[in-house]
């Protein structure tokens, strides 16, 4: 019996350890992750506007690289910055909400500048919304 005890204890430690590891698993590091799709803001918007169901199936939860010109920048009371990219529409565009878990080189984007972001595509309400965005070159 004593012989098995140390194996049982060993297994227990591994079990608890891997359980804790799963529980405290960190969020995906967007900066270090590769974009799965790369599109312009106008293309993303078009895809969602023409067939939302198909676009959801194709893009939801994917890390998307998106490029476009800055149309609007806003900061909410918690200091979360959102950049709206022009998608060739008069009212709506592609909103990139900057990641709260990443240190950003800048949070100030002049309107009209061409920028590139990558982030997680979450779908479309009025605009297409990407969260956890980081700027790329």
């Amino acid at each position: 019996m004593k012989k098995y005890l140390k194996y049982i204890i060993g297994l227990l430690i591994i079990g608890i350890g891997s359980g804790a590891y799963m529980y405290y698993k960190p969020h995906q590091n967007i900066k270090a992750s590769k974009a799965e799709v790369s599109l312009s803001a106008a293309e993303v918007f078009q895809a969602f506007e023409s067939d939302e169901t198909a676009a959801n199936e194709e893009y939801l939860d994917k890390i998307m690289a998106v490029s476009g010109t800055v149309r609007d920048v806003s900061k909410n009371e918690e200091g979360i910055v959102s950049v709206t990219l022009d998608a060739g529409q008069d009212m709506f565009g592609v909103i990139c909400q900057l990641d709260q878990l990443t240190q950003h080189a800048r949070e100030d984007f002049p309107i009209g500048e061409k920028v590139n972001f990558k982030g997680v595509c979450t779908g479309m309400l009025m605009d297409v919304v990407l969260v956890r965005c980081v700027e790329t070159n």
Partner: protein
Amino acid sequence: MKQFLLGLCLFMTVGLSQAEAQKYFTREGKISFYSDTPVEKIEAHNQKATCVLDVASGKMEFAVLVKAFQFEKALMQEHFNENYMESGTYPKSIFKGQIANAADVDLSKDGTYDVTVEGELTIHGIAKTVSTPGQITVAGDKISATAKFETQPEDHGIKIPSVVRKNIAKIVEIDVNVALEPFKK
């Protein structure tokens, strides 16, 4: 004829802008939810809710993308999206309803008004009729609104395995906080 058309255009523009002035909107609404049990505290936040309020009729609508909710723990977020909300199939949650006592809100006077919001809350593809208290604060041409909803996962067809049932609150609280601006093109 030309003058008549011009007059008509002018008349329509004025009419339109008046109708629009009654509408308030935001795309930066904040929606959070809280599940509090002795075993585990779960909360998630979303800062990208849209909300449209038509003051004249008291009709309001807000929508939120389920995948844009951010959790403290990655594993919780994964379970929330994949096992419970099935956000790949049901990417949005929507509330459509109206302020029952819209007449009590006086937009020309700054202040805080207590309101009751009634309507249909659609989560996980299943709509449920709800009625909940809220507050509307008028400050100049800006309106902010808050409301608290209480809902049960089971009411929206969300199945929670019995092993983890005690980790998730029977009644989940949803907090809505929006700052609205006049809708203009």
